[in-house]
């Protein structure tokens, strides 16, 4: 069942793998932004997670511990951002950019002795019965736990924001921090938590690249995925379901263009390489343009909160 040297089953299965890091990072950033904080340090937190996860997995031999370390590493870096922006009230955009630059350097330093090592691999979970469904089984039900975790997160975050009181408070803080403060909610505490969650998710996403997708350690392994995650949050109008669409679209076209390159398609390689970025942004713009012009951005996004 090949089309021009491309097997659709393998293509679709690897699509899910390729999309998972973006999905994780974008979901985390979406929650952070919903609380009114713009953290441009996603790329830095991802690569910090990638290197922390890689080191922990190699040293302990356990990929699970690797992912735990990745989440903690990403969260630790995000706490630095939280302290800067929430306590010292620095402007969020430069603080986030600094976080990315620092994360890239830190990861490079920590990973020096780990280049060329193969990490322990994460076992695939074969879902009984479902994996035997022809065509769909191999695509959907033979992945590792993190892929399922990321999909679960989409539903969990959607439900958290829509149905729980904590989610409502988080949105309220992102919408009007002065009013939330006047009603007695702890704006800074909420934002610390949201920033930390964003950092942990970015760390997980980074580790998925270094432990599963690639899997090895090289400098700059995240290769701009953090930036596309940021863009996806915006173009997905801060909705979990659309973040999923955006991430899978990007991952899908990435995999497709790699396959096309391998199959020797007669299209310039540069054009193929830029196609995922182009197509993803295009599709999400079209989706979000339909909603009577409203951007749906949290009103306090990037604004500094002085409690006085």
């Amino acid at each position, binding site marked *: 069942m090949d089309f021009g040297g491309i097997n659709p089953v393998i293509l679709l299965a690897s699509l899910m793998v390729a999309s998972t890091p973006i999905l994780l990072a974008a979901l985390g950033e979406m929650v952070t932004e919903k609380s009114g904080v713009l953290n441009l340090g996603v790329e830095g937190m991802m690569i910090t997670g990638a290197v922390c996860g890689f080191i922990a997995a190699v040293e302990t031999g356990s990929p699970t511990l690797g992912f735990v370390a990745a989440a903690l590493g990403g969260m630790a870096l995000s706490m630095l951002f939280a302290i800067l922006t929430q306590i010292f009230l620095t402007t969020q955009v430069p603080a986030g950019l600094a976080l990315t630059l620092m994360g890239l350097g830190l990861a490079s330093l920590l990973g020096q002795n780990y280049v060329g090592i193969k990490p322990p691999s994460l076992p695939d979970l074969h879902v009984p019965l479902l994996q035997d469904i022809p065509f769909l089984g191999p695509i959907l039900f033979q992945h590792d736990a993190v892929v399922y975790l990321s999909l679960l997160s989409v539903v969990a975050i959607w439900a958290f924001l829509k149905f729980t*009181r904590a989610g*409502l408070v988080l*949105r*309220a803080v992102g*919408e*009007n921090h002065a009013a*939330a403060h*006047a009603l*007695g909610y702890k704006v800074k505490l909420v934002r610390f938590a949201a920033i930390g969650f964003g950092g942990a998710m970015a760390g997980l996403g980074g580790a998925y690249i270094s432990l599963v997708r690639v899997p090895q350690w090289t400098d700059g392994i995240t290769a701009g995925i953090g930036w596309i995650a940021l863009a996806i949050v915006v173009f997905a109008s801060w909705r979990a379901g659309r973040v999923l669409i955006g991430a899978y679209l990007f991952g899908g076209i990435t995999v497709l263009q790699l396959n096309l390159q391998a199959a020797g398609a007669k299209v310039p390689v540069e054009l193929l390489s830029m196609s995922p970025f182009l197509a993803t942004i295009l599709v999400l713009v079209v989706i979000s343009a339909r909603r009577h012009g409203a951007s749906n951005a949290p009103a306090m996004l990037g604004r500094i909160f002085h409690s006085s």
Partner: protein
Amino acid sequence: MTELLKVVGLTREYPGVRANDDVSFSIGTGEVHALLGENGAGKSTLVKMIYGLEKPDAGTMQLHGSSYAPQNPQAARAAGVAMVFQHFSLFEALNVAENVALGMENPPKMRELAASIREVSENYGLPLDPDRIVGDLSAGERQRVEIIRCLLQDPKLLIMDEPTSVLTPQEVEILFKTLRKLQSEGTSILYISHKLEEIRALCDGATILRLGKVVGECDPKVTTARSMAEMMVGQTLHVPSREGGETGNVLLEVKGLDFAPANPFGTKLKNVSLTLRAGEVLGIGGVAGNGQDELLSVLSGEARTGKGAVMFEGQDVSHLGPNARRKIGILAAPEERLGHAAAPNMSLTENAALTATIRKKLSKNNFLNWKKTEDFAREIIKAFDVRTPGPGSAARSLSGGNLQKFVIGREVLQEPKILVVNQPTWGVDASAAADIRQALLDLAARGAGLVVISQDLDELMEISDHFAALNEGTLTAPRPAKGLTVDEIGLMMGGAHDMEVAEL
């Protein structure tokens, strides 16, 4: 009628001002009690203490006869005290039910909450759809959201801070019906306003505050608006220290000006006419929000008006912007210091350049002469005794009173032909206020015409030659300030309403 809330000797001091000084009053169960006073009389500070947003420096409160000292708004809400804010504390992107839930301690499930919002809002004649996004609602509907949020918690005392300031007359009627229904069910209401007619229509008792002190209590149902205004402004208005009439040529003439501001909550100016002569001080009184900001913007050139509406020395200047008007000698100092009169993060030197470049010739070929600008800033600081480390300090680092002196000084030292000021001494201590008034009088003595808009009637009586009052966007005919009685001022400011009603 049993006593619900009793306030004894509440005192609250801010740096440089005693906002509340030994304030005592009480509210009975099911009473609608008015808190009456001019701007800055300390009404807001008092209710903030009752709602737990501020803590008193001295004094005690009792609710239902037992001690009441809320640490925060949550504690106040738990004790049965709810408040509808003057500036709404709503979340525009969230829907009505979510907004209501955020203001409750233990909200029920969303579906039940939506049902009870429908029920309560219908019950009280304030229909609301719980699923609508608050950002799409009108000002009146937004206020309903706040009220419903309070009502769902079954409050014993409902505090309303200037609730009618953003409402249409029809909406005010609906609101009053709701409040009367609440009253009949035994809820007490503390109603803050300076609109005397509303208070006469609604309230059972009134406490009148002036400069942080209780100056009187009355039954508004039997007291006239005139005598309440008397109590608000005090009996002892200063005798004007200047004679009216020794003024020169007509400088400024406004005839039949109609103006609708861009801001939807602004006040429309209706058929405003005034004449200003050289050397004359025209004082304009009236409660806040009756068109003061709009009048200033029309005179300063921030807002353009129709042809022929604003005449300066016989020339039509209606189409000129602020800089063109500065050039011919019309200057203005608006009320809002940070962000309107001065750029908060810029230094005093830079702020001096912002309005004085043209008249003080601070630039050449579009390059600023910073040396000259700094000298001018120093001149203002010296002449007006502005307390600051130097002209390099940021405007926001100055205290309100010092910045006010700088802003007024900047305009006065440019030797304008016409100066329009709004609230020239708001938040300024007494001695500095006297200095500012003296500077304004000196400017007039040098032949300039002044329009002084203020809510401080003592101030207006002290410096004005003529006095007029703004009332819902209309300006009364100016009258000589000398010999004007408190009665007459009260009538000009708002008492005129009930005269119209009486004539019908």
